[in-house]
């Protein structure tokens, strides 16, 4: 969490001195890093206090108003979790129209939300989830075990989300109780997979089963249901039926268009609900896709948007300087920006298959550890944070940001050191028998990203001169993920790995997910590392919290030693709003305890936002 001018205040109203005095900004960065390091034990007390101060400061909530939310993109292709590659902008509508089985509290722990309780057997191979009674979807159907089972099956059976749920075994449903058996042994963090991820959000079974591409309609799918397949597939994936604070009203895809949802009078946390709360406060939410960051910020400043989000650090810094809007920032449990290196070679330690049978990656200098270490030593992360991070982003030294399990103040990752860089480069060139290395450096064609990565290349040129020839190759966003999946790259700018539990990183790092180049693999860099595998399995199967933390730290150190990725910064997200918008990120859980506020790459709740006098204008 980024501290603001007023200690403990999450909402930053005045920080003009950050932008105007670069040296002071650099000092602030150091202070922030120091403050962040203080949260190393995972308690994150400072952040917790800060969140506490924002709640209830703004008076008694008033009902009414339509909140217009400026989104960075329109990233959903339909709103069913099993078919959606949900980015941050997709989670805003998702959070409006539905809730998840589990929530995350302010300590980063998974706690029941739609679930009443959750339990497991002694060896964590069977989980029993008991659901709250009396919750209804927007179509009037009840949230029962049968509906939850169907929801989970769609995600397990989906080609898009199935890999993450490959350890889900047989599911049984009875009344309000769902039992999930695991495959491949214990799974100690299973509820985290049904927390804040898309598949944790519950949707009406009637709606899901009416969609044309639901896995149960596909004859080759393990969940194929002939009777269901014979029913009309007339559901509209763009018209979700959830159980959230707002009911879907309309959606028009594309930039400038919006997703609109209106108050759900029968919300389970509302006056007619089961918790005795009075949510939501707003009459409606209209989420408008506004892709261009300047347009989005201008629309906020001119009053067209009531609230907006962005991960563009420069804009966040500008908005923090702007007295006319209020800005909340956070990098809590967020993603890490990094440069992914293709290290595909040799044999997969888990599957025994050749990772690069055609030798497509044989000439990539990133196969050499000394080359990787040289490049890592050659990046001045402080300068990068200052010049491209608006003075507010924090240099990263691993995949786990401060406050997350596995974070280490010193992960062993090569720090900026020109002499060490040159020494490593000399060894690299000597090993390869050449006087220079060349590689393609892919980035998305977003101008900001291209400029950022061009700065990194210029740092290498300053450090190594002609010994490093990196060619920046921008790629259209639509193709980008596909190229990573197939492993057709040398060096690739990337952002990933947010979350509360390191178990959620298993599918990105385990050797089993490292398929040969040309085949789809979620371990995009295609490393196969015994130490990482062993520790990932410990994290998945060992219930001992200390052992899991140690395993995560071991992974962090291993990344530091082997430099499979070049870490650059921890992603910071900003939510800016008009002064009349209150409790922008407040998340009080049904039992009155504090839920996590802005976290997981820009995610926050919408059901507790309210506007002065019940009017958002």
């Amino acid at each position, binding site marked *: 969490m980024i501290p603001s001018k007023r200690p403990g205040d999450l909402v930053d109203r005045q920080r003009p001195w950050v932008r105007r005095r670069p040296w002071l900004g650099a000092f602030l960065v150091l202070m922030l890093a120091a403050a962040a390091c203080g949260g190393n034990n995972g308690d994150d007390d400072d952040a917790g206090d800060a969140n506490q101060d924002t709640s209830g400061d703004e008076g008694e909530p008033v009902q009414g108003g339509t909140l217009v939310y400026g989104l960075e993109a329109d990233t959903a292709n339909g709103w069913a979790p099993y078919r959606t*590659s949900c980015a941050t902008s997709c989670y805003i509508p998702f959070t409006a129209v539905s809730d998840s089985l589990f929530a995350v509290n302010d300590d980063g722990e998974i706690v029941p939300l739609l679930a009443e309780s959750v339990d497991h057997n002694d060896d964590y191979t069977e989980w029993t989830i008991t659901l709250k009674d009396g919750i209804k979807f927007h179509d009037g159907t009840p949230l029962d075990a049968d509906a939850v089972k169907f929801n989970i099956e769609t995600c397990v059976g989906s*080609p898009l989300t199935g890999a993450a749920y490959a350890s889900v075994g047989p599911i049984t449903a009875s009344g309000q109780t769902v039992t999930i058996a695991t495959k491949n042994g214990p799974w100690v963090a299973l509820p985290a997979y049904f927390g804040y991820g898309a598949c944790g959000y519950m949707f009406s079974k009637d709606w899901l089963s009416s969609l044309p591409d639901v896995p149960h309609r596909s004859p080759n799918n393990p969940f194929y249901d002939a009777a269901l397949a014979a029913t009309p597939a007339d559901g509209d994936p763009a018209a979700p039926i959830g159980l959230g604070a707002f009911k879907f009203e309309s959606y028009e*895809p594309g930039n*400038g268009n919006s997703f609109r949802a209106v108050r759900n009078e029968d919300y389970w946390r509302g006056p007619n609900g089961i918790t005795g709360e009075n949510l939501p406060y707003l009459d409606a939410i209209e989420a*408008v896709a506004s892709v261009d960051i300047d347009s989005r910020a201008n*629309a906020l400043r001119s009053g*067209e*948007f009531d609230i907006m989000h962005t991960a563009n650090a420069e804009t966040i810094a500008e908005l923090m300087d702007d007295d006319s809007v209020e800005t909340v920032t956070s990098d809590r449990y967020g993603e890490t920006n990094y440069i992914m290196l293709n290290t595909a070679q040799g044999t997969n330690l888990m599957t025994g298959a050749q990772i690069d049978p055609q030798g497509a990656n044989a000439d990539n200098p990133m196969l050499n550890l000394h080359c990787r270490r040289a490049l890592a030593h050659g990046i001045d992360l402080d300068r990068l944070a200052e010049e491209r991070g608006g003075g507010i982003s924090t240099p990263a030294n691993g995949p786990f940001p401060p406050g997350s399990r596995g974070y280490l103040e010193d992960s062993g990752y090569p720090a900026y050191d020109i002499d060490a860089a040159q020494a490593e480069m000399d060894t690299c060139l000597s090993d390869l028998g050449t006087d220079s290395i060349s590689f393609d450096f892919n980035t998305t064609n977003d101008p900001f990203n291209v400029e950022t990565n061009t700065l990194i290349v210029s740092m290498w040129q300053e450090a190594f001169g002609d010994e490093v020839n990196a060619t920046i190759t921008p790629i259209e966003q*639509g193709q980008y993920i*596909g190229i990573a999946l197939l492993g057709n790259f040398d060096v690739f700018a990337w952002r990933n790995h947010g979350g509360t539990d390191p178990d959620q990183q298993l599918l990105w790092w385990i050797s089993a997910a490292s398929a040969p180049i040309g085949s789809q693999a979620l371990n995009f860099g295609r490393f196969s590392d015994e130490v990482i595998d062993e520790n990932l399995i410990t994290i998945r199967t060992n219930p001992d919290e200390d052992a899991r933390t140690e395993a995560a730290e071991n992974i962090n150190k291993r990344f530091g030693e082997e430099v499979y990725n070049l870490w650059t910064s921890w992603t910071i997200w900003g939510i800016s709003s008009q002064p009349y918008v209150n409790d922008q990120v407040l998340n009080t859980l049904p039992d009155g305890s504090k839920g996590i506020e802005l976290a997981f790459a820009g995610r926050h709740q919408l059901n507790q936002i309210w506007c002065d006098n019940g009017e958002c204008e």
Partner: protein
Amino acid sequence: MPRVRALWDAVRRKPGLTTTAGALVVLVGGWLVGLPMLLSFLGAFALVVVGASVVNGRYVRRRLFILVPTIVLVTAFTFYLENSRGDTRDLAFQILGPGGTEEGVDQIVQEFHLDEPMHTRYLLWLSDAVRGDLGRSAIQGQPVSEVIANAAPVSLQLMIYAQVLALAVAVPMGVYAAYKANRRGDRIASTFALAALSIPNFVLAVVLILFFALGGIRTGDTSIGSTWLPAARYVPFGQDPVEHFRHMALPAIALALGQAAGYMRILRSDMIGTLQENFITTAKAKGVSDRRILWAHALRPSSFTLLTVFGVNTATLVGGALIIETLFTLPGLGTQLGTAIFQKDFLVVQGIVLVIAVGFVLVNFLVDLLYAVLDPRVRHVRA
């Protein structure tokens, strides 16, 4: 029957006036009864074609004969560009996105006929397109015709407002500059026009946003600028007409100013030539007032180049508005086209390019017809 006869006689006597008036009635009437905008436009267009046919049927038929192969050529070329890159299975994989399976790729290949030769695919697409089926967007999940139907009115409105504004500024300025040719008034007008032409519309848009939406520049206690107009978003006319025009004002001005400057310079130049003609000298000798000479005698014959450029610009504005629409978060065709290109949503790209191409050809066809409607000399020479 006598009334119909009288109407027909009126059309024959004043074809330009009556059909233009009829087209306007269709547009306004269509809006009042809630007719889809595209349908109203088609109705108005048909009326103008009828008017032109009355004037010179042979000429209209000749233009129509060229129209069809032009549209086929443009769409074929676009289809080729969109479909000629890479392996068709790669294309299918891109359509599916992350998580795409071999089974899914097979399905896409079959659905989009990607295993057929290029010309077969084009003919299949064209035969569907003429029946109004432009396929389904792989990314947005909507029929392409629906995507276009939702976006086209926004772009059409922006285009119309920009053109009306441009003409409203350009015509008086052009006439005035020609009247005061090479004198101070002309030089001032021409300097402004040159400045407006030199500024790209997206730069102008940013400046307009700064000064009319964000409060402008502040120095101490003094600020130059205002927050009169919104910086983004689209409000449909039917929802709130006042807000609609407030939201369209800045993008329309950003688009119109450059156009106005160009139109003004063209009109000025043509009008200076016209004012040297003998019939103008005769009018002056007869004591006709300067105002009447300028507006009633010189303007009409001076407006042919302007009309041609207006026609060309009208359709290109849709594509040219891409940045403006993005800057102002307007969900028009330009925005949709840009997004579809980046997302490789090729059916949407093809559909929008088809609409722009057909629109371009039709508007220029209309301009050709208007030559004949506007000027008896052209009518008789071409006949």
